[in-house]
């Protein structure tokens, strides 16, 4: 599904990713943990195609294609989704309208008919119910005036409506209380099957109680320092990142 090899990336001449390797197969859930500033969000944005970052070495293959060669919207249309750590506000643009534009852009890319208003609203209604979101989200401008938790929930609403094959979640759990965490996890788990892969970036192992990963990676200084299973997350939570020993690449 996603094959990252020796990835180096920089921003404003500062090297952030320093030879990162990661391989995600269809249906797998991978978690990345790591101290602040280790480059987790950088990885997420490089995967999504943020042009502020420059890839200086390495490669990323997505479903056999060179991901780094694709424009951000092309990556999105091919099923790569990023739930942003800090979702952006777009004043004046209605949340539902935005979601519909996104869904129809992706459908058009696959030569599929646009959903008509009725089908689309039914879909949104179903997903909003799943995520226990208030109806008012439909008519408000994208993320404008949303609380931190509401923004994260809105990201997951987009995730469930757009139904991507490869989703990257960047600290979606930060700032959520336990109830919200559970709802968000419910949204993610509703998509989980052999065709959907996830890369979940988090600080806290508690999210991983709800979204149970197949692999846990520890990222330090722009590289994967250790890889293990769910128990690694518990260990890190217990002992902190500093005591984790570097291990051979998985």
């Amino acid at each position: 599904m996603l094959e990252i090899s020796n990835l180096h990336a920089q921003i404003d001449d500062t090297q952030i990713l320093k030879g990162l390797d990661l391989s995600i197969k269809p249906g797998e859930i991978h978690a990345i943990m790591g101290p602040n500033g280790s480059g987790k969000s950088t990885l997420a944005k490089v995967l999504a195609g943020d042009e502020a970052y420059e890839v200086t070495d390495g490669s990323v293959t997505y479903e056999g294609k060179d991901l780094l060669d694709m424009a951000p919207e092309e990556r999105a249309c091919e099923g790569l989704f990023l739930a942003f750590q800090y979702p952006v506000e777009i004043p004046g643009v209605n949340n539902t309208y935005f979601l519909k534009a996104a869904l129809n852009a992706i459908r058009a890319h696959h030569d599929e008919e646009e959903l008509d208003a009725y089908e689309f609203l039914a879909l949104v209604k179903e997903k909003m119910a799943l995520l226990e979101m208030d109806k008012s989200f439909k008519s408000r401008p994208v993320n404008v005036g949303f609380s931190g938790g509401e923004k994260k929930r809105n990201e997951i609403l987009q995730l469930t409506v757009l139904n991507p094959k490869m989703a990257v979640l960047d600290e979606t759990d930060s700032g959520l209380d336990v109830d919200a965490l559970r709802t968000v996890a419910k949204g993610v788990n509703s998509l989980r099957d052999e065709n959907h892969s996830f890369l979940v970036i988090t600080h806290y192992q508690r999210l991983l109680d709800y979204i149970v990963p197949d692999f846990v990676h520890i990222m330090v200084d722009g590289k994967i320092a250790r890889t293990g299973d769910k128990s690694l997350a518990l260990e890190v939570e217990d002992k902190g990142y500093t005591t984790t020993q570097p291990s051979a690449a998985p």
Partner: protein
Amino acid sequence: MESRHTMRREPSRTTALPLKLLGLWAVICHKRQSSDGLTGKRTARVLYSWYWPFALGNGCILSRDTIKQDPIVDDVLDATYKYGFVTDVDAESAPPGLNEDIVRFISAKKNEPEFLLEWRLKAFEKWKKMTAPQWAKVSYPEIDYQEICYYSAPKSMEDRPQSLDEVDPKLLETYEKLGIPLAERAALAGVAVDAVFDSVSVATTFKDQLKDVGVIFCSISEAVREHPELVKKYLGSVVPATDNFFTALNSAVFSDGSFVYIPKGVRCPMELSTYFRINAANTGQFERTLIVADEGSYVSYLEGCTAPMRDENQLHAAVVELVALGDAEIKYSTVQNWYPGDENGVGGIYNFVTKRGACRGDNSKISWTQVETGSAITWKYPSVILQGDNSIGEFYSVAVTANYQQADTGTKMVHIGKNTKSTIISKGIAAGHGDQSYRGLVRVQKGAEGARNYTQCDSLLLGDRCGAHTFPYIEVMNSTAQVEHEASTSKVSEDQLFYCRQRGISEEDAISMIVNGFCKEVFRELPMEFAVEAQKLLSVSLEGAVG
């Protein structure tokens, strides 16, 4: 008085200055105005000396087949100015230059009665002594008025065709190409069109149907001949001939334009519209529009304009006067898409226009809605004089300046009658090296008990080489008045665009979506077909604006 907003990530709002402060502000404004050469308070009759820049820039509109398509997306990839072609017609033109003989020539061409010739000559005498205003925040090389041609008309229009069959097919084709079929069977249902080509009106559709309900809709030249009493009564009654440099020029040499009269109690059964087309080179267009809504009547009027692409700048100096009598309502919408010049700022229309409406009677209402996407320079301030008690003035504006376009635009709301209300919603979008200013005056006269104004003035910047400025002038002479001013400046950020693209939406579509969202309060004031066209125009104007 300029408040140049700093660019912020998110719009910020400064709300409702307390009235006391406003009073002080008014004083400052006054001072500032006089030092700017702006005539602040003149006489009780309220003569304004605000002029309009001249640039070519009115919107293309009413294309039948495009209306059915997706409003926003389709034209985005086709960024060139679509209306830049030239029609090859045999034209009769006056030699370049302006003198008394030219004024007489134009008047004679139009078989005008003596009173009008005298009116023109008087304006011309005054104009000779006037100078072009300097206070607007636009810059352009000095215009040599002796180099411009003041009259150009297709020869085929010489003997005034009586029906569409007699009109030169080339002219009809031109409008067809612009998406304005003039044959009534093909025309847009519910919209009557007056088509003005350079200095003459080519045709006016649905005239007979309108006549049945007593509505007069014809070219101003025809009105002068057929309804001289109405013209004499109202022409220059809202915008005096010598109001400013450009109105004096227009009054001396105006060639054509539209005339509308809605009789008492009549609700005009269709939208009326004028489509202005500049074709001839080195020719200025000086149109004159006069709309009179008699007591208790209603009319919605639309205006659109385009011009060929040329390297030379061309002058468009129009005057529009609206008169609303008691309980009457006029809704005036403009989509201005004159040729804006190329991406290096070469060519384009100088659009210096004076538009003003008078709410003469009690409970009358005048509403201006404008979408200004074209022109190299736009200088216009559609205004309302609220004379009647309880009268209402509205101004809804979207102005776009991309590449090297400049716009200094806004409005004036003058409250004279009691309980008069005005609303100003201005949305400015600057991209590329575009520069634009909102300039607005709200004046509450002494007797305007209970007057209320609400002004909202928002700017959106795309890229970091463009500029947006706000010049609000507020003069309150009655303590019962409520005046509210809000302003914001925001920027379309790379983060927003990346967010949209990450969801599968292309950059062009993302910009369209954000810009249309920004403008929606204005768009919803436009008649349906116009709103759709306006959205598309915005997309085209802003093509390539970022990145």
